[in-house]
C-alpha cells in the first residue's frame, strides 16, 4: 500500500511512520521546507520537497496534487491542524474520496478497508468508522507514538511552483519563549483569571518551568487579552505536562489537550468537569495558590 503525507514537522513524520507500520505501507511525503530534507529522508521512503513559499492553501494543494498524480496513494495523511484540514478538504474534493478528520486510531481490516476512530461532538465522543481505500485522513497530533525507524529514503526537489491565485501577506506570531506546539510543559489560563494583568503569574510560572503558556478561547477571542488560544479552533498541543488553571474543561478546549501525557488542573469548583480528566487536580483558589507556588519555584532556581 502506498501512503502519501503532507507534513511540516519531523515529529509528525515519525508519527506517520507508526501509521505506515500499522497498515504496512510505503511512506511518501510532501514537505514545504528544504531544512527538513535530510532528517525527513531518514523517516520517509521518498521525500518531495518544495521551497517554502507563503502558505496559501490553493497553491499548496496544486503541489500536493501533482505528487499524488505520480504516486497514486491508497491512503493520504495530513495533520489535523487548521492548515492540514484545509489541504485535506481540497485534496479529497479533487480525488473524490472520503476524508476523516480528528483521527486517533487506525486498524487495517482486510484488503482495501480501514477501521478508524475519530473524535466527534467537540471531542466528547469517539466514533468508529469503516472506510474504504483510497481515503484521506487528518491525524490528531500526538495520538500515535512516534516510531524511530531509520530508512535511507530518496529526496526529490520540486522546482516549479504554480503562480499563486491569491495575494498573500503574513505576519508571523511573536513567540515569547518556546512555541506552544513544541513546549514540554504548557501552562494555560482560563476565565478564573479576573484581569489581564493577572496573566503575568502564568507567564512567570511557565518561564520558571521552562515551558510555554496560553489561554482558553474566551480570554483571547472575547476579552482580547492574547492573540491565540488552545482548543479546537486554536492550538492543538501534546506536551509532557499540561497545567490548566481556572479552566472548566469544556470539550472544545479539552479536545486539543487530551494527548498531553500528564494533565494537572487548579480550579476552585470541585464539580468542574476538568477534574474528570486530570491526573492531578487541586481544588482551590488560584489567587492563593499561584503566588506561593511561584515563590517556591523562584527559590529553587
Amino acid at each position, binding site marked *: 500500500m502506498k501512503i502519501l503525507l503532507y507534513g511540516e514537522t519531523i515529529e509528525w513524520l515519525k508519527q506517520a511512520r507508526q501509521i505506515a507500520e500499522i497498515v504496512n505501507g510505503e511512506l511518501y511525503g510532501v514537505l514545504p521546507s528544504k531544512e527538513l530534507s535530510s532528517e525527513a529522508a531518514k523517516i520517509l521512503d521518498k521525500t518531495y520537497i518544495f521551497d517554502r513559499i*507563503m*502558505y496559501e*492553501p*490553493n497553491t499548496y*494543494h496544486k503541489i500536493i496534487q501533482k505528487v499524488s498524480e505520480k504516486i497514486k496513494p491508497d491512503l493520504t495523511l495530513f495533520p489535523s491542524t*487548521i492548515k492540514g*484540514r*484545509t489541504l485535506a*478538504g*481540497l*485534496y*479529497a*474534493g*479533487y480525488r473524490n474520496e*472520503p*476524508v476523516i*478528520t*480528528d483521527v486517533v486510531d487506525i486498524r487495517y481490516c482486510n484488503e482495501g478497508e480501514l*477501521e478508524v476512530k475519530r473524535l*466527534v*461532538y*467537540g*471531542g*466528547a*465522543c*469517539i*466514533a*468508529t*468508522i*469503516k472506510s474504504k481505500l483510497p481515503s484521506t485522513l*487528518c491525524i490528531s497530533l500526538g495520538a500515535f507514538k512516534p516510531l524511530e525507524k531509520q530508512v535511507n529514503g530518496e529526496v526529490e526537489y520540486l522546482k516549479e511552483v504554480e503562480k499563486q491565485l*491569491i*495575494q*498573500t*501577506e*503574513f*505576519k*508571523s506570531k511573536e513567540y515569547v519563549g518556546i512555541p506552544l*506546539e513544541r513546549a514540554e510543559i504548557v501552562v494555560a489560563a482560563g476565565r478564573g483569571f479576573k484581569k489581564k494583568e493577572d496573566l503575568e503569574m502564568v507567564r512567570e510560572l511557565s518561564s520558571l518551568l521552562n515551558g510555554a503558556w496560553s489561554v482558553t478561547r474566551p480570554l483571547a*477571542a472575547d476579552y482580547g487579552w492574547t492573540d491565540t488560544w488552545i482548543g*479546537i*479552533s486554536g*492550538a492543538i498541543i501534546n506536551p*509532557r*505536562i499540561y*497545567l490548566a488553571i481556572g479552566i472548566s474543561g469544556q*470539550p472544545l478546549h479539552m479536545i486539543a489537550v487530551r494527548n498531553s*501525557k500528564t494533565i*494537572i488542573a*487548579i480550579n476552585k469548583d470541585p464539580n468542574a468537569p476538568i477534574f*474528570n*480528566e*486530570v*491526573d492531578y*487536580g487541586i*481544588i*482551590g483558589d488560584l489567587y492563593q*495558590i499561584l503566588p*506561593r507556588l511561584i515563590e*517556591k519555584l523562584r527559590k529553587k532556581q
Partner: protein
Amino acid sequence: MRILTLVKLTVDISQLKYESSGDPLMDIVPRKMGDSDKCAVEEAVRLKEKYNAHTVVVTIGSTLDHERIIRDAYAMGIDEGYIVEVDGYENLQAITVGEIVKSIVEMTGPYDLIILGAGSLDTHSYTLGPIIASKIGIPVIAGVDSLNYIDGCFEARCVMEDGTYIYRSKPPLIVTVTTEVNEPRIPTLKTILKSKKMEIKRLKIENLKVKLEKINILDIKRYVIQRKNIIWDASEDLEKAIDNLFKLLVSGV
C-alpha cells in the same frame, strides 16, 4: 453580487446526555443551526446591505428542523432558500455534500461568493469549503475571522498556528468563517413574522444527479481517557496542596 450560504443542522453538543453504557442519547439531543454557519449568514446579510447583493441559503435534510433553520436565516435577512430533501442526512460523506452543493450552484448560480461555517459544531472537520472549491474549481480561503470587500476584491484575515495571514482575491471565491468574524444579529419580531410567510424551495436528491455516499459508522461512544485522577483539596490543607504541586512540577512527572 450574488452570494450562496450553507447552513447545517447540527447536534447541540452542549446539551448531549449519555446512557450509563456511555452511548450518547442522540434521539433526544436538540439540534440547531451551527454557530459558525450563523456567522456566515450574518456576513452574507451584511454584504447584501452594503452592496445590494442577492443572498441564497441551502440546507440538506428533510426534517422540520431543517425548515426551521432556513426560516432562521430568512429572519436574519436572507432572500431565497432551498432545502435538499434527503434521508439519513447526518451520515452523508463530505464529498457527497460537496457534490450536492456543486449541483445547486449549477442550477441556481453563478455566485460571486460562497460563504459557510469553517467547522461544523458536531464534527468540526473544516473540510467542506475546500471540498467545494476543488469540485467547482474556484479558490477557497478557510477559517476567516475578518472579511472585507474593497475595490472589487475580497480581503480576508485568518489567524493560524504560526501567525496571521491576509489574503486578497477577486470573486468568485469560497470563504469559510469562524465564530470570530462577527456577532450574528438577533432577529426582530417583525423579521421573524415575515420569515414565516416566505417561500422555501424544495429539491429532491433524486433530481440532482448526485451519487449518495454514506459514512459507515460502526458506533459512537463517550470518549474517556484513563487518568490517575488524584485530587487534593487546598481548602483542607493549602500548604500541602501547594507542596504536592511543586514537587510534581519539578519532578517533571
